[in-house]
């Protein structure tokens, strides 16, 4: 529970925080940040699960963009990427060590490897007094309020919605009937489970769509290639391939290409990898979804920064500003050009002073 702000023993609770802030339009005013804060080395981190995935690269680039903003306001900082290599333990340990090193002067964006470890990551940060925002995964029964004020926010790009949206785009592309292949991500992974759940919801709305094959390719391109290559032999009349991410969509496309079916069989992915976005443009892929990693990490860090600098008090923030969805961009033939211009050819322009402009409405 949150404490009333009468005690004055912490700077966050001092007069700088107004009673009712218009969070939607809250803007960082650098002049309100005490000089001693600006001169303190702030440790900035993103905690991710391995760098071989292009989506994760956009996460780290989001941090880089945010750090440019810190430069612009004269904040002293040190940045770090914490790589868990897909291991829960390593991610928790990384966070503990990072927090211990920073002695409370830390902000972090974390993509918990599994839902279960989100509270542990928050706890690791809370015990040293730093600030953390998580994304994607957290247990249903845990919330940022459990670690006030250190677990500032939890955001997610809604996997169920994204899975459903791409599935619907695929089915529409097929004219509402035909056979599809379903390629799942790693078994037991929350993102994969939710995306497949979205797919299944869409499936219910399209009774003439039939799932011909469904298997996991463990998020990997070559495994997806092998699956589709094999399946095409007994289902040459497949109408579409739904993939739980773009890495696997790349493999599916390659398998189709071998049978000269590229462009004829619809494919969808999620993540908006560069090559898939190009394939959307070329008409070989029906749709993909960008979760906008730049925005996720950049703004999460901005909000945590505001909390660390004492500009906002997370404990005082209303629920909808603690847990919210970030806008996802579905990329289809209709908007692919503008998407490329904004997100691929350049890093999207982000105004980190307006910290809550990342909240989907």
């Amino acid at each position: 529970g949150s404490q009333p702000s009468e005690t004055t023993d912490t700077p966050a609770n001092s007069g700088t925080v107004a009673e009712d802030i218009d969070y939607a339009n809250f803007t960082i005013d650098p002049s309100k940040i005490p000089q001693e804060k600006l001169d303190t080395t702030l440790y900035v981190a993103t905690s991710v699960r391995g760098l071989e995935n292009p989506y994760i690269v956009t996460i780290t680039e989001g941090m880089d963009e945010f750090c440019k903003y810190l430069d612009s306001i004269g904040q002293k900082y040190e940045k770090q990427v914490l790589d868990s290599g897909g291991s829960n333990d390593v991610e928790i340990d990384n966070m503990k060590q990072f927090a211990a090193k920073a002695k409370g002067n830390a902000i972090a964006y974390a993509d918990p490897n599994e839902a279960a470890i989100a509270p542990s990551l928050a706890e690791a940060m809370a015990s040293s007094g730093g600030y953390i925002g998580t994304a994607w995964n957290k247990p249903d029964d845990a919330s940022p309020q459990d670690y006030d004020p250190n677990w500032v926010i939890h955001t997610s790009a809604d996997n169920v919605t994204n899975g459903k949206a791409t599935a619907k785009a695929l089915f529409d592309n097929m004219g509402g009937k035909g056979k599809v292949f379903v390629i799942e991500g790693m078994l037991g992974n929350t993102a994969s489970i939710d995306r497949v759940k979205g797919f299944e919801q869409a499936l219910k709305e399209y009774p003439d769509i039939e799932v011909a094959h469904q298997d996991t390719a463990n998020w990997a391109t070559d495994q997806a290639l092998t699956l589709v290559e094999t399946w095409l032999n007994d289902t040459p009349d497949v109408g579409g391939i739904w993939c739980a991410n773009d890495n696997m969509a790349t493999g599916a496309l390659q398998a189709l290409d071998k049978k000269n079916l590229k462009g004829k069989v619809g494919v969808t992915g999620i993540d908006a990898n560069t090559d898939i976005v190009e394939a959307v443009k070329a008409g070989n892929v029906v749709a993909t979804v960008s979760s906008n990693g730049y925005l996720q990490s950049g703004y999460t860090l901005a909000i945590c920064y505001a909390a660390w600098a004492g500009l906002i008090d997370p404990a005082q923030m209303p629920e909808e500003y603690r847990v919210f969805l970030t806008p996802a961009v579905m990329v289809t033939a209709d908007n692919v050009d503008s998407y490329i211009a904004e997100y691929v050819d350049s890093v999207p322009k982000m105004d980190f002073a307006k910290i809550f402009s990342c909240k989907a409405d």
Partner: protein
Amino acid sequence: MGKEKLAALSITEEFASKIKADNQKERLTKWAPVFVLIALFLVFSLILGGSFASGSNLVSILNQWAIPLLVALGLTFVIMLGSIDLSIDGTVGMAGSLAAVFVLNSRNGNDMGVWGLFLAVFCSVIIGFIIGTIHVKLKIPSFMVSFAFMNICAGIGLLSYGGKPPTIKDEFIASIAKSSFLEIPIITWVALLVFVLCLYIQECTPFGRHIYAVGTDETIPKAVGINVNKVKIKVFTLAGFCFGVAGVLGAIRLGQGQVSIGADLMFPANAAVVIGGTALTGGKGGVVNTVVGTLIMTVLFNGLTMMGVNPNIKTGVQGLIILIAVALTVKRGSTIISK
């Protein structure tokens, strides 16, 4: 006296018939992997009907076979030495990544064409050479050296494209993935070519014999004046070559360079080598065995995928079948120590 002779004769006969039975048994175990392969084929054809034995699926199997075959070929020599090479995942991934960044690609300005592919293979050869040299000169178990290099190579691969996998834009190279000759994919032809090279090395060169000898007991070749260290380094270099070709073909097949091209190749390759009949203790087996072993593994994966086994239990089922295959094919006997 006559009686004695009769008795003596019969023990000789007993012995002769025993040898015959032993030889028959041995011949059977020698062919066991082939029987397993045929059995797998028949079972899948029965369960899956024509779609499994269809021409197009056979081509898919050949296509899926190429890279495991290459990896397992390289590994076979290493295992014949009695050593092990755990660098596979990293080396293959590195070679694939480098191939993609050397040729015309979406990440940088390089455009070395086919030479880029050779250069990538060459890098992998160098890694193999370094692994062998460190293993031999510093007397560190190959297990550890190659494991360390798995990490190092994965790092090199990752760095080469900085996180965003490069797509191959060179049209000729990209087209290799789709080309075939006599209905068999070019990629598979390349793998078969490497197989012939390996077979030649194994059967027709002194080096090939020396590998067996070193694997059996390295003090003996040493005493004869064979440079055992050189043999070992050569084997690891050869393995590096095979892994490099596998990585490059992998990148061509995917149309993209990625470190993960190498992921999860190692255990199936090991299983294939062992199922084929090459002993992990060294000195036995060879590349022909490996051909059969990799075919068994490829057909198994292909069939299971077609059957649409529930993914939750698929790994378990795979494990079980591999176990059964090994049980059926591994040569056993009271004198053989298995570790």
